[in-house]
């Protein structure tokens, strides 16, 4: 039997404001427990929330980036439930009328095809504090530093049909929020969190009962959690059972999902408009201002890389998938480097080295300027591409600048035709058998001669010249 998977994601993206969504307290991460919560965050009697205007602008940046409908009058509502890390006994969120309405985003699938994923809505809300259950034996500790931190919850349509698609979408949103500088994207610190709504159905049938997966803090886990959940649901259905609508926690250590609460146990949140806050009114002027202020978006950048730099769609996709990578690449290009060659270096040697050392591109030991120099030394024939790979490794290990390494190691390319000719003459003289075969028509042997020449020149002979001279001498 063929099963279809249906996935929708809810992404909580922490907005990069200095202060909280409804108070003046700082949002900095990692401070001593309960030092960044003021009377408002602590829910003291009599305190009132005041909206941080910055979060509205950030939400609008997002909305405009996904071509969403913007609600010019959105409303904050109270989501009521009791929990010790929720000081007021309600979370201020948006319910009926979110600031960002329907939009969409294009993702690139592994096949190279594009797919449009619908965005249902994106709304502003405050984060809760943290409950720490393992600090004391008999008590739960509460840290309210995070209480009141602004979040944009981005809800997708159930448009993804595999874990891989869900990850592609999540990555796309992750890249976007960093491009438009509304979120630092730090998943370890919880700045970007995904919940996945997963269901399966037989081909052509209506939507199945879904489970909501929570507690997923990396793309790797997102993929694993969805796959494991899909398998679980298919097993149940194939055995004639039925899936229960519930919230499930993903346990990355055991690689399993566990029931957290069923639909019946779910809270009735008793949403109603928060009477302490006025509707958020968006003027046309503000929208215009924000539109003007938006940077080039990943999709726009990708198209530009294809159209004006002549990159392949695949290369353009990879290079624009992360803001920092695109910035790194562009700063090489801006200095005049060949775009295809630069793309290969960034996606090839640099990316491999970064992966191996588990570094982000912003922490690369080789700066974009240095990589530009290395690439220039290839195009100006100082070194060959092959030698450049060795130079790159030495640069990575901090052995000096491009030119220092070329100098010190004597790696400068041999471009003196006389010198190359004399090496070629030696090779020809030492290999009369092969010369004869070549002359008899075995043209494949050219590679053999090139190899011998390069070997004799310790790889420094200019390959183009070697080819030319060899061809002339052997014909």
């Amino acid at each position, binding site marked *: 039997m063929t099963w279809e998977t249906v996935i929708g994601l809810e992404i909580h993206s922490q907005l990069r404001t200095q202060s909280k969504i409804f108070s003046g307290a700082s949002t900095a991460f990692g401070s001593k427990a309960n030092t960044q919560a003021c009377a408002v965050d602590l829910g003291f009697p009599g305190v009132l929330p005041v909206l941080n205007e910055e979060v509205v602008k950030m939400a609008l940046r997002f909305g405009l980036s996904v071509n969403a409908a913007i609600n010019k009058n959105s409303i904050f509502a109270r989501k009521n439930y009791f929990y010790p890390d929720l000081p007021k*006994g309600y979370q201020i969120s948006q319910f009926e009328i979110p600031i960002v309405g329907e939009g969409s985003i294009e993702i690139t699938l592994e096949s190279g095809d594009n797919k449009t994923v619908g965005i249902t809505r994106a709304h502003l809300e405050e984060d809760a504090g943290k409950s720490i259950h393992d600090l004391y034996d008999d008590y739960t500790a509460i840290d309210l530093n995070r209480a009141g931190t602004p979040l944009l919850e981005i809800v997708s349509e159930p448009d993804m049909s595999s874990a891989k698609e869900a990850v592609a979408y999540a990555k796309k949103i992750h890249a976007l929020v960093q491009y438009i500088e509304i979120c630092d994207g730090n998943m370890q610190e919880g700045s970007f969190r995904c919940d996945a709504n997963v269901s399966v159905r037989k081909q052509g049938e209506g939507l199945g009962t879904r489970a909501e997966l929570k507690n997923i803090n990396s793309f790797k886990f997102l993929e694993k959690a969805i796959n494991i959940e899909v398998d679980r649901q298919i097993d149940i259905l194939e055995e004639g059972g039925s899936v229960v609508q519930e919230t499930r926690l993903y346990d990355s250590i055991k690689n399993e999902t566990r029931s957290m609460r069923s639909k019946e146990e779910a809270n009735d949140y008793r949403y109603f408009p928060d009477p302490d806050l006025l509707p958020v009114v968006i003027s046309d002027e503000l929208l215009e201002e924000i539109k003007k202020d938006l940077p080039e978006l990943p999709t726009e950048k990708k198209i530009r890389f294809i159209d004006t730099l002549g990159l392949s769609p695949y290369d353009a996709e990879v290079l624009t998938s992360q803001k920092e990578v695109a910035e790194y690449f562009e700063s090489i290009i801006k200095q005049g480097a060949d775009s295809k060659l630069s793309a290969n270096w960034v996606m090839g040697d640099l990316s491999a080295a970064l992966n191996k050392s588990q570094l982000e591109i912003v922490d690369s030991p080789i700066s974009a300027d240095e990589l530009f120099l290395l690439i220039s030394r290839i195009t100006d024939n100082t070194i060959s591409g092959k030698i450049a790979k060795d130079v790159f490794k030495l640069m990575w290990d901090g052995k000096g600048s491009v030119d220092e390494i070329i100098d010190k190691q004597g790696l400068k390319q041999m471009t003196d035709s006389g010198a190359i000719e004399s090496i070629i003459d030696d090779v020809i003289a030492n290999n009369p058998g092969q010369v004869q075969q070549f002359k008899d028509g075995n043209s494949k042997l050219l590679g053999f001669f090139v190899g011998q020449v390069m070997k004799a020149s310790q790889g420094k002979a200019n390959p183009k010249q070697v080819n030319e001279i060899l061809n002339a001498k052997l014909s």
Partner: protein
Amino acid sequence: MHNLTVAELIKGLKNKDFSSLELTQHYLDRINNSDLNAFISITEDEALSQAKEADKKITKGSSSILTGIPYAHKDIFCTKGVKTSAGSKMLDSFISPYDASVTKKLNNENMVMLGKTNMDEFAMGSSNENSYFGPVQNPWDTNKVPGGSSGGSAAAVAARLSPFATGTDTGGSIRQPASLCGITGLKPTYGRISRYGMIAYASSLDQAGPMTQSAEDAAIILNAMAGFDKHDSTSANKSVPDYTQCLKNSINGLKIGLPKEYFSEGLDSGVEKIVMQSIKEYESMGAEIKEVSLPNSVHAIPAYYIVAPCECSSNLSRFDGVRYGYRCKDPKDLNDLYLRSRSEGFGEEVKRRIMIGAYALSAGYYDAYYLKAQKVRQLISEDFKKAFKEVDLIMGPVSPTVAFDLGSVKDPVSMYLADIYTLSVNLAGLPGMSIPAGFSGNLPVGLQLIGNHWSEELLLNAAHQFQKRTDWHNRSPAEGQGARR
């Protein structure tokens, strides 16, 4: 000295007839000798040191108009370092770490806080009998209720324990006790005074205001309390006029509307007589009297008793025994902590309203209750809008009866009916006032004045003109009913 109005005390301080310290000590003595239970906390030490500070400022000439004037603060306003209980066991141990914006404003004037006044728990009640700290007695007859929820403030001003007091009004909590205690009470337009630091009952209805002897005093105190506050998004960013400047205008030609619905069944005939007498007084001052209709006012009680409990059920969720306030002994687990802290910490009426609100907001009932009530609220607003096209002010009774016996109203719904003439004003966000208009038996009767949004100047002037021609507001129970000072 204690019969002087704030306006008179300001002059006395300026002329050095007495010092703020003398004044303060005098009121403190009166409070300490009073059995009305009008105060939850008497802040004697703080008051005396504030008075000394004020006297220094007065001597140095760096005082403002209200410097050194003592007052009583409803125990719903947060006061830094002083217990702020909201009349509840839940907050019996709560010392606020910050000042409400209103408290700050009065502190900035170097005013002297005598203490915190008794009130119905979390401002829920119309008789002050819902206070954890016991009921307040009506100074005109100690067997009677003072009204509520600002019952302590009203009794304190009526008994001249304080020159004025602050109050809050969610459904009549300034106007009704003002009426029942024979003082002047003003509930301004919603948004006129900051709600920051005022413990929330029903956020969309709560509004602070002055409780004073006279309309002139109300104008003086409103000047100090009003204004935009960046900490309260619902406070209006609207300039504050000098409310004392409007008190000289003639009311000749003023159009006064009497809502026919306010003079129907249920209105005590003694109260009606006094209200009609006062209307005649206005007529004799040149006002035109006209009947108007507020057809949806009959729905005010049900609408209010949905909206207010819904908001309160959420506003009071923060009292969970986790961070401050009452916590039950030896909680077994989290649920037990919540359940017992809230069951033991809240009084009956508060729990009743939380239950009603939580029910009305729950899935499947929201549309039928909360949304419906909001629609009714809209209709009530439109009734007023229509009426104010025809008239400048609306007048009528504040309360259907005079002060009733302590303990006499046992069933909550009958108690809710006491608010029938005051609730609509809150639902529509309008300013309303109660001024002393006479006596029925030996108990005071108030006249209610209702204005359009932001018409406080008109209201205060109309009240002041009445008080220029009558002396009901000057009568005090200390000298016995009907006696003049």
